[in-house]
């Protein structure tokens, strides 16, 4: 969109100012180029609906002011915030707690990390110029994404996680992100995960924050899955009701690697979750699911790009959206099959259940195929709950509301039932039930 020249919005001008003032603090850094990232962001600006990839999610209109990066909270404040965090609380896991985007060691299980896994706080890695930082942006296309570049420019904290080849720790690592405060703030965190050949790793991620506060979290997760390794990732977005939550996950899969990533969204006023996959090795397998339940005034955007660049890749992407009140669901999915990626089997599906007439759903499932021996497909449906099914349940004595809840559960359940980790699966189902209960 080079020919679209917008005047800089107050938020964009504010971001430039914030970047200038933080520049000194980053001066000694070698490992990442914040300068380059910010210049990229400045050139594009906050994307508006005139930018095709943000057609349905106008960040320029949504982000009216640049919230200052959050300071690291005091331990007491952090402790108070975490006390109310319920995401994956029932699941036994080694927790890394981030409050307002800063790792709080005292509330983390840094000394209880499962065997075969090492965790290095990102700040330490940056200071040492850790070689693993080369894992940044493992998918080419993510480097052209303004949200990701903004994250790089303002990166405040995060972690580097390495899983030794062959290690199969059964205890997951839980990244617990909690927001707290009285005034607007922004966060920028980055977690890098490197999984050695033949290893298996479970990662849980929960995002929670206060209601009524316009905070702007921006999280990024960069993953490289080695040969025959498996990465199983479960994510929960329960951000506060005024939050503008941006997140990006980019994953590179080597030969015969397996990916399972499932995201449940019930929180935030506006959320955009971006998933970038680069299938680099042959016969890799990726399962990408999303379940989104929205109520009054919310907008949730799931944007997926799966780039198949090796033979025999299998991709299964399933997104379920439930729209209540005047909320908006967005799904943009794109499967690219390069010429070399023969025998790719890619299936992408986005289904939406509209519970009210005020809601809307925007679907854009794309295919871009350059190989002739492939089986790729996509499906998209949109509609109200089936009256026949409702009638069937009501004829058996259920009130309409209960019947509708059951249908919603069954509809969304399909996207979360594939989660391998039992505890994580139960937590997501619990999240869905809680949403339905709150709806009444």
């Amino acid at each position: 969109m080079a020919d679209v020249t917008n005047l800089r919005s107050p938020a964009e001008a504010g971001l430039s100012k914030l970047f200038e003032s933080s520049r000194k603090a980053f001066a000694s850094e070698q490992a990442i180029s914040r300068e380059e990232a910010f210049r990229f962001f400045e050139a594009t600006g906050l994307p508006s609906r005139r930018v095709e990839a943000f057609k349905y999610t106008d960040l320029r209109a949504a982000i009216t002011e640049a919230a200052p990066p959050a300071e690291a909270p005091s331990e007491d404040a952090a402790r108070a915030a975490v006390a109310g965090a319920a995401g994956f609380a029932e699941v036994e896991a080694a927790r890394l707690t981030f409050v307002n985007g800063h790792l709080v060691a005292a509330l983390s299980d840094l000394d209880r990390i499962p065997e075969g896994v090492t965790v290095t706080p990102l700040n330490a890695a940056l200071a040492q110029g850790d070689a693993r930082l080369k894992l940044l942006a493992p998918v080419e296309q993510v480097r052209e994404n303004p949200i990701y570049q903004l994250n790089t420019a303002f990166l405040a904290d995060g972690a580097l996680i390495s899983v030794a080849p062959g290690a199969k720790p059964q205890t997951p690592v839980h990244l617990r992100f909690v927001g707290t405060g009285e005034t607007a703030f922004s966060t920028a965190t980055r977690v890098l995960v490197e999984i050695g050949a033949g290893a298996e790793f479970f990662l849980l991620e929960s995002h929670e924050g206060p209601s009524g506060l316009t905070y702007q979290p921006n999280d990024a997760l960069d993953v490289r899955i080695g040969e025959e390794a498996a990465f199983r990732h479960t994510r929960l977005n329960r951000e506060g009701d005024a939050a503008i939550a941006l997140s990006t996950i980019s994953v590179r899969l080597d030969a015969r690697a397996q990916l399972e990533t499932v995201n449940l969204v019930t929180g935030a006023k506006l959320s955009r979750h971006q998933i970038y996959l680069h299938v680099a090795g042959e016969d890799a397998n990726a399962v990408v699911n999303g379940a989104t339940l929205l109520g009054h005034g919310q907008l949730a955007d799931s944007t997926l790009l799966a780039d198949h660049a090796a033979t025999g890749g299998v991709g299964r992407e399933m997104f379920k959206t439930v729209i209540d009140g005047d909320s908006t669901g967005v799904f943009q999915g794109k499967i690219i099959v390069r010429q070399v990626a023969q025998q790719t089997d890619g299936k992408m599906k986005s289904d939406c259940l509209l519970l009210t007439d005020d809601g809307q759903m925007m679907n854009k499932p794309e295919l871009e195929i350059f190989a002739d021996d492939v089986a790729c497909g996509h499906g998209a449906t949109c509609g109200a709950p089936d009256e026949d099914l409702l009638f069937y349940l009501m004829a058996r004595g259920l009130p309409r509301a209960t019947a509708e809840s059951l249908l919603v559960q069954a509809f969304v359940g399909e996207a979360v039932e594939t989660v391998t980790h039992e505890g994580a699966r139960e937590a997501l189902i619990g999240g869905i039930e809680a949403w339905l209960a709150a709806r009444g």
Partner: protein
Amino acid sequence: MPAVQETIDRVRSIDIDQYKYGFETVIEMEKSEKGLSEDVIRFISAKKNEPEWMLEWRLDAYKRWLTMKEPEWARVDYDKVDYNDIYYYAAPKRKGPESLDEIDPEILKTYEKLGIPLREVEALEGIAPERRVAVDAVFDSVSVATTFKKELEKAGVIFMPISEAIREYPDLVKTYLGSVVPVTDNFFATLNSAVFSDGSFVYIPPGVRCPMELSTYFRINERDTGQFERTLIIADKGSYVSYLEGCTAPKRDDNQLHAAVVELVALEDAEIKYSTVQNWYPGDNEGKGGIYNFVTKRGDCRGARSKISWTQVETGSAITWKYPSCILRGDDSRGEFYSIAVSNGMQQVDSGTKMIHLGKNTTSRIISKGISAGRSQNTYRGLVSAHKKAKGARNFTNCDSLLIGDQCGAHTVPYIESKNASAVFEHEATTSKISEDQKFYCQQRGLSEEEATALIVNGFVRDVLQQLPMEFAVEAQKLISISLEGSVG
């Protein structure tokens, strides 16, 4: 699954190297000055003896066009047209034929070669009476002949070149021209509004079922010209018309521009069936030459229970940029889009449709089959949207593509926007998902899943294509039996 040999052979048989219509007709032509200016527009308008309001309309469009930019969002890559290096008007010098005998014999020969019946007798002999077709033949910028005019007049049907309609039925033209595709709709439509030279005008009076199929045959002949035809079809209350369109052009090394606008208006209970076999010269195997086909086609189901159906068989053009669409404004109106797009050589196709549901209980159906071979790129781009008030809107979309060879690409870019809960939209791009019930029924009777799927899809496509008139049938038949195994979205 890769394509089977039978499919590959069929596609090869319609290979661009075998383009049959690439000959040139040498006749004396009258042209406007090269390039585009207010003077050229005045020249075109004067040539057509147009009333003042029409000239104003054109000049207004031209002024708007000057401020517009050529769209770049389509997945096509081409050397931009130098809009000041083409002729916007070219017409055979021998003027105003009163009867067929006065038409330049070279032109008659051209249409004979193309297999288009311009003589009514021949038409009667060639085709069974119930398949008679009235033809409007457009040669570069002018209509050279319109057949069966008298017989159509008896039924009250108006079928004539649009330049004549502007003079003879100014009120009808004024009411409807630009009412479906506004002057400022897009870059190419605005350009067309400024310089359109000829095309067909059809008006079907209330309650009339047009006694024969109407057809326009477009031929680009002259070098360095663009063709900018404009078609306007109005089906008044309770009427029905089937309209067909065909097009060819000589083989040349340069690219030529074709920027047409087609507007359809269906009032209450009316039905318009619009079929196209697009066979412009696609360029050679190396991508040299060929037509740039930048076309805006849109139908407006303005009245309740109206119906518009687009059928297209796209095999030609170097670049195709074409989205025949339906605005479903009337309650219970219906829009349909059936498309088979075959690309080969270096062709680039970016085509699809828009179904815009505004009225209650509106329904639409999209069936799109893309087949790419050679080094071509074939994109389906479509929008289905339901307005908040479009209660009970329903859409079914199925778009499949098939790749033959590993140098080509097939792409799908659907937009599905639903703004009310009672709208039911289904979009599918895998053959295995087509009506499970029907498939089950076939499989019960011993067919394999693949056979059952092929039967359902082919049966459907065949049904549509069989409604094309004879002269298009041959071309279309080559395409319909292309099997759909190994389809990708």
